[in-house]
């Protein structure tokens, strides 16, 4: 049964220094508020897992929360590079960042294997590329056809964190629109946190909705606007101007530090 608690309590309760934490949301429902709370609580040495590290991971990396990044595409969608990520990789600032790099297909399969309590996933991938040297992949033979396929180690985060449209008072979660790998991120993780736009009495059925029953979620926290600058289908639009502005803010260490102080550290949880 998920407890409905404050974001501050939930993060304090569920995330420790050194944990492997997956904040998921594929271009949609990105849990920015939860990421900011991790920064406020000064978490360190995190292994950050995410198919598409974008602005929120740029912020976590730039503030030194992360020791390792597990990912498959790291950029500012529609804008360009993540300058904090690049500086960590290219110059080890503020701290060196170890990379474990996948393809989307491999990482999605690894989450699915984790959710299914399998130690690995099989896919047609990686063959002939330089990725296997930088990921958790091996080769496996089909016992029936003899074909050689890629095996990727299952992802089992300590904590899975996602943002959803809403939950009911029992902590049952409902999200819709592009659902990415959120279900897998929660089910593959040992603990999970779902931030929501609102808590409602009844979860009216919605076409294309994914339901996470309260008994597979550790905590639910209300964070209205918690996905900004990404969007929440049916609630608010993507703040494209912010993504563009982020390019300038994140290019400069001081501008970045100022922005974090003003918008994260000195902002209410």
């Amino acid at each position, binding site marked *: 049964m998920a407890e409905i608690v404050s974001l501050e309590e939930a993060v304090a309760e569920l995330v420790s220094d050194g944990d492997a934490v997956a904040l998921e949301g*594929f271009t949609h429902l990105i849990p920015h508020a939860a990421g900011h709370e991790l920064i406020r609580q000064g978490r360190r040495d995190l292994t950050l897992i995410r198919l598409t590290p974008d602005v929120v991971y740029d912020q976590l990396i730039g503030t030194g929360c992360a020791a390792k990044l597990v990912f498959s595409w*790291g950029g500012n969608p529609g804008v360009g590079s993540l300058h904090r990520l690049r500086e960590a990789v290219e110059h080890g600032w503020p701290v060196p960042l170890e990379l474990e790099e996948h393809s989307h*297909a491999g990482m999605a399969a690894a989450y699915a294997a984790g959710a299914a309590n399998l130690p690995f996933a099989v896919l047609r991938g990686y063959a002939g*590329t330089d990725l296997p040297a930088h990921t958790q992949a091996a080769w496996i033979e089909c016992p029936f056809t003899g074909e050689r396929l890629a095996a990727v180690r299952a992802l089992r985060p300590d904590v899975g964190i996602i943002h959803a449209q809403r939950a009911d008072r029992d902590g049952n979660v409902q999200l819709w629109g592009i659902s990415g790998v959120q279900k897998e991120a929660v089910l593959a993780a040992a603990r999970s946190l779902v931030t929501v736009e609102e808590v409602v009495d009844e979860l009216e059925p919605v076409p294309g909705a994914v339901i996470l029953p309260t008994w597979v979620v550790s905590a639910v926290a209300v964070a209205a606007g918690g996905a900004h600058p990404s969007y929440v289908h049916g609630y608010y639009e*993507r703040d*494209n101007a912010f993504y563009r502005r982020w390019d300038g803010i994140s290019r400069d260490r001081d501008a970045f530090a100022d922005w974090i102080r003003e918008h994260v550290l000195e902002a209410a949880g």
Partner: protein
Amino acid sequence: MNGYTAEEMMAVAAARKLRDGAACFVGIGLPSRAANLARATHAPGCVLIYESGTIGAKPLNLPLSIGDGELAETADTVVSVPEIFSYWLQGGRIDVGFLGAAQIDRYANLNSTVIGDYDHPRVRLPGGGGAPEIAASCKETLVILRQSRRTFVETLDFRTSVGFGEGPGSRERLGLTGGGVSAVITDLGELAPDPESCELTLTRIHPGVTAEQVVEATGWPLRVAAGLVTSTPPGERELEALRSLRTVEEREPAG
């Protein structure tokens, strides 16, 4: 009017490659622009699939990311990311993969990961994303990128996606189920793999471009096909459609 830029020629030439009704797995940026141009012109029945799980998306605005809300709202269906890659892409259902890249070599292998050494990169690029398996599994793959010695290189700094590997037989040896790269569309012309050697060969030049220019802009000794043809310039309808493709941003600049 008939003035157009090399960028526009590239987009139009790429769009023309997409046949109506094809199921097309689209990367963001130049590929998405070209695929949406095709939808707006000769290929209204083209099925656009984005790695966010949106199948049959019909965006009015040009998406800024592969997961814009409009893609979900206009899609025939939206599936999870694990499903789009397993049941749909790996499933062998996609006719055309449409990719960009930072570097390409003579066998149409692609780099979208890093420039320089992986551990001490000169430029850390976003990475593979969906590209490696798009290049592996689609029945054919189209590549669109601007042509220069920086992008068309003798040796990739990192091989993110496989075109024809080391040449003939590589794809078969690697067990890749898709057909590989069928064409590379650039701002100067088009290259296609030689049927025997699999080596990218110049098959088309855009109006006003010379073969020499293209060879000059290529980091390996580029072979030029015997029957080199010149692209038809963008038609009025194509240019109009292309120029009316706008992101939400471009339509209504945000604050």
